């Protein structure tokens, strides 16, 4: 470590990091407004806030990716300017981003070497990786190629990369969004051990239960300002959520399951193969979704969710038309347009860049899928007046915060864009709705609204399929739950007859059926 980081005496220790009046303005928005933050040595500190509250901007300034317009940053009691991420690493600040930056075709050690400022010799590096990963219980083989690794293991690569630099402050951005509950529990052990050794951890998450279980203190941001600080262990999850959104939270009521009607979506023996070595093939997947019910499919990302979504939406065609039937019509060979006219509506996992075109206005984005079931196109000509009206209906009906129908899709926060997309699909009165990751990265207020809308849709007689990694969400929404693991789907169980732990084990590969070779690797971890 560099001499910048003076090791303080343990008792009279100055704060590890202190922010005073940090302000950052972007064209058209005040992202951080006089933010104060104090991180003590060895504490696990939560940074809480809705999407767009300014959390990412703040940590990017700590890590030197962005620079504040005004305000000061004190590192171990000394006023410091963090010029860039390399400078942050020299100070002893490490960051694990929400989205990994790993090369699939390189080994763990090679990936780590690429991220270090002075990697040194490869064999020595591998040895250091082994030492550090053993010390913190992060099982990792430096010689393995990254494409073999599960998402949890990939995250370990990122964490180990930070730990090799002996950080005094570790920033974790939504680290558990891709982990099974068991993997998350292991991660918490590691973080607690790090904190016990004096490393400060700044933990960003929207999963409130986690924060209550893990963190010592929490700072809550709303609209770029600090609105409160608390000890999360003494608050309820509901109380934390209300601090975040600044109003009372309405949780969706668990209505008694409606009478499950006719099967709207039937999938029989669906298998896919792919030329892409990084894709997961679906293996003999069968299930059905009935009118009036919500089926949840759980699973850690990369277990075939993307392939299943594409097979259901029609973006990937299936040779056997009978493999997917919608409303009794064989649809495996039909494209998205034909499936939409059978009554399918679809919300993809990627909001920006698939569910919506970033550069286009909301009224044009309303047309994107709305053309199929709304009278927006006549005689080959677009009826722009009606597209605008449709966009306005969605904006009003789903409380989308946006500057009207003219706003570009990319100008919306994640939660508002997701409300818009889900509204666009629901208002087409679909008979069957397939949703991927409905509330991933969405703030608590918007998530509650989305959950409510999905439940209301099912109770009105539509069949709803939710594919999600968020078990809390699936337990709130679903009538039945299945688990997708390595391209295989488990039998579904009624939600009230199962538990988070049981589903978590299935997500880790403990199926009733003997797992294949890959399955054992993940189980061994």
């Amino acid at each position, binding site marked *: 470590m560099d001499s910048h980081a003076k090791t303080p005496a343990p008792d009279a220790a100055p704060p590890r990091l202190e922010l005073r009046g940090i302000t950052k303005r972007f064209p058209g928005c005040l992202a951080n407004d006089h933010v104060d933050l104090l991180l003590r040595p060895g504490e696990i500190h939560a940074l809480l806030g809705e999407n767009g509250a300014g959390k990412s901007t703040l940590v990017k300034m700590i890590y030197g990716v962005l620079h504040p317009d005004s305000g000061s940053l004190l590192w171990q009691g000394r006023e410091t300017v963090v010029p860039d991420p390399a400078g942050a690493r020299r100070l002893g600040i490490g960051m694990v981003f929400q989205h990994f930056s790993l090369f699939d075709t390189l080994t763990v050690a090679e990936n780590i070497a690429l991220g270090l400022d002075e990697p040194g010799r490869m064999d020595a590096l591998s040895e250091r990786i082994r030492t550090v990963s053993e010390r913190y219980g992060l099982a990792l083989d430096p010689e393995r190629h990254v494409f073999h690794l599960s998402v949890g293991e990939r995250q370990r690569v990122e964490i180990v990369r930070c730990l090799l630099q002996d950080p005094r402050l570790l920033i974790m951005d939504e680290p558990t969004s891709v982990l099974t509950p068991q993997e998350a529990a292991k991660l918490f052990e590691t973080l607690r051990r790090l904190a016990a050794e004096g490393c400060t951890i700044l933990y960003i998450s929207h999963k409130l239960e986690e924060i209550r279980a893990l963190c010592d203190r929490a700072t809550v941001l709303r609209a770029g300002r600090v609105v409160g600080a608390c000890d999360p262990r003494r608050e309820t999850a509901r109380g934390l959520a209300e601090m975040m959104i600044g109003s009372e939270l309405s949780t969706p009521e668990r209505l008694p399951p409606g009478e499950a009607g006719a099967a709207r979506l039937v999938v029989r023996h669906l298998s896919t193969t792919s030329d892409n070595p990084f894709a997961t093939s679906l293996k003999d997947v069968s299930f059905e979704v009935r009118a009036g019910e919500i089926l949840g499919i759980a699973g850690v990302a990369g277990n075939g969710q993307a392939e299943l979504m594409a097979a259901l939406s029609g973006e990937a065609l299936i040779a056997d038309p009978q493999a997917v039937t919608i409303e009794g019509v064989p649809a495996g060979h039909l*494209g998205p347009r034909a499936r939409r006219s059978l009554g399918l509506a679809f919300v993809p996992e990627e909001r920006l860049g698939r569910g919506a075109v970033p550069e286009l206005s909301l009224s044009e984005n309303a047309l994107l899928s709305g053309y199929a079931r709304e009278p927006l196109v006549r005689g080959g000509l*677009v009826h722009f007046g009606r597209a605008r009206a449709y966009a306005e209906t969605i904006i009003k009906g789903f409380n989308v915060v946006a500057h009207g129908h003219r706003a570009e899709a990319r100008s919306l926060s994640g939660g508002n864009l997701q409300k818009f997309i889900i509204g666009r699909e629901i208002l087409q009165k679909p008979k069957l709705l397939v949703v991927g990751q409905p509330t991933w990265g969405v703030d608590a207020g918007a998530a509650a609204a989305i959950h409510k809308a999905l439940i209301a849709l099912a109770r009105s007689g539509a069949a709803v399929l939710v594919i999600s990694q968020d078990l809390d969400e699936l337990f709130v929404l679903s009538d039945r739950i299945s688990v997708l693991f390595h391209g295989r789907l488990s039998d579904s169980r009624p939600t009230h007859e199962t538990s988070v732990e049981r589903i978590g084990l299935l997500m880790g590969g403990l199926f009733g059926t003997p797992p294949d070779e890959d399955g054992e690797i993940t189980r061994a971890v």
Partner: protein
Amino acid sequence: MSLIRLEPRGQASKTMVYVTPLLAVALTLLSGFVLFLLLGFDPVKALHAFFIDPVSSRRGIGELIVKATPLVLCAVGLAIGFRANVWNIGAEGQLTVGAIAGGGLALAFYGEGGWWLLPLMVVAGAAGGAAWAAIPAFLRVRFNASEILTSLMLTYVALLLLNYLVHGPYRDPDGFAFPESRLFEADAVMPVLWSGTRVHLGTAFALLAVAAGWVLIARTFVGFQIKVIGLTPAAAGYAGFDQKRIIWLSLLLSGALAGVAGMGEVAGPIGQITPSVSPGYGFTAIIVAFLGRLHPVGILLAALLMALSFIGGEAAQIAMGLPKAITGVFQGMLLFFLLASDVLIRYRIRFGARRAVA
């Protein structure tokens, strides 16, 4: 720290979309001024000879329109494809085949024409261009072969085909073995629209293409699909837009328009089939399409500007003894400055060092 920095704008600047072409023209003129000065010419006189003299007569303006006509026809079609990420680089070849097909009809019915011949030639020209563009479309849709390469390579095939025909089957039997066809008869020639000039019916087609292109892009659902495919192919797949259909449509359309342009050249200003039907209209149209921001009205203006560079180059050769390459130099500078100043749409220039954090 550098004294001049580029700072990202939050949003693309709508004003800059319109300002940068003008800026590019201004910078081109400025560089031309310096260039002429360094070459030892009087820059004011040279620029005057290049840009003003050619359009200071009725005949000159007519020539400007004659040159702009094929550029507009080709560029409108190309722009529709470019918007959908379909990169047809071979408009020159499609133009040539349009000339071969339309002109071939004129020769086939030599001496037995009628009022029906010219409309038939227009259809044949469009069909010839479309057929030539159908080859890269098929290869792209069926084998995922890059249309950039295939359409460009087919241009040279078309030029060789033309060369063969004017040396063989199309050659004027009474032409002393010169590689040229007979002069077309009156029934096979585009009527002149503006007396005293060579402005012909093709100009009306070009204006029609501008209007139809605008309606297609701005008003139709197909135009919306093109836009979505061009911006975000994954969203187009999600929405169920058929990308293969759009590839076919945009290549056939741009091929047909280029074919009409080629037919209009042989049945218009040239009046016969010669070994060189076009001085590179099909390639220049690519610059025109981008200079015009892929918008039909912008293309109309850009085509006039590029046409001016053609006739200005000729005029400057004659009046000042400037080298022939001057046309290409000006066209290249224009494209260069346009692409360079496009950075201003997403970024703004800031002077002075970045403010240090207190």
